[in-house]
């Protein structure tokens, strides 16, 4: 079966050829239906091809490979393969609790389209820093703001393993605090081993899944 990407590429190639043919043979405009052909070649097809291409690139930007294609992200990618289930991203990635092909995107967006315009601008800034700025050491890379529990709760809320876990109910206010984002999942001595890229040199790695 032909994939959407192949179809998109074929459509773009066809649009390109049509534009070239029509541009070289402008006398086609005088033929019956010639104006309609030029309109399709110079307006409809290029707009559809560009729209489809932008959509394909947006989908690609969700891929784990996209995020890890920048050198500075390499250690964060390696941390997904740590053979230690106390590493939260590794446990989620290796056990397919998140889609492995979209691992970064799944946990680092706030379940709006890329977390809004601010996230997109940050993405552009990251690219600028990668090529023109001074790239920090991976261990010095921190989130802009505390990790939002809602990203975890998007999947775990209502799950028996989360709702009934004794650690989540150590005190009467604890569950409410977690759900209202007052007690962080990551910084409460519970799930605080995340990427921890500065510890990777001593870690052992899972060899499967790649």
């Amino acid at each position, binding site marked *: 079966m032909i994939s959407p*990407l192949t179809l*998109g*590429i074929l459509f*773009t*190639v066809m*649009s*390109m050829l049509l*534009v*070239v043919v*029509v*541009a*070289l043979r*402008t006398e086609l*405009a005088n033929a019956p239906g010639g104006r309609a052909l*030029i309109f399709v*070649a*110079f*307006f409809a097809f*290029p*707009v559809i*091809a*560009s729209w489809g*291409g*932008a959509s*394909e*690139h947006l989908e*690609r*930007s969700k*891929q784990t*490979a*996209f995020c890890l*294609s*920048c050198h500075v992200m390499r250690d964060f990618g390696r941390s997904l393969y740590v053979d230690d289930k106390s590493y939260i991203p590794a446990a989620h990635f290796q056990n397919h609790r998140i889609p492995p092909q979209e691992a970064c995107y799944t946990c680092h967006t706030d379940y709006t389209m890329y977390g809004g315009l601010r996230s997109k601008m940050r*993405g*552009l800034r*990251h*690219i600028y820093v*990668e090529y023109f700025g001074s790239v920090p050491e991976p261990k010095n890379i921190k989130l802009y703001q505390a990790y939002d529990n809602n990203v975890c709760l998007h999947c775990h809320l209502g799950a028996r393993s989360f709702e009934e876990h004794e650690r989540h109910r150590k005190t009467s206010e604890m569950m409410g605090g977690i759900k209202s984002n007052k007690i962080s999942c990551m910084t409460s001595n519970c799930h605080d081993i995340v990427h921890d890229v500065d510890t990777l040199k001593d870690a052992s790695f899972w060899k499967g899944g790649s």
Partner: protein
Amino acid sequence: MGAPEIKRRTRRAGLLIGLGLLVQLLTFIWVHPLAFITFLAVGCPLVAAGVLLYLYALAVHEQRHGDR
């Protein structure tokens, strides 16, 4: 604007659109942020410029014909 003028503009528009689509096509080779940026910052503006030039040529041509 006479027939040669609209032909010239149409050719230029075709060149811009063709070039833009070629750039867009090439960006599909890589899964990389730079490919995305090239698509948005080079490919799309070239296509948009070509489409606008074509529409402008068409509008001016129609206006001249309407005046006659």
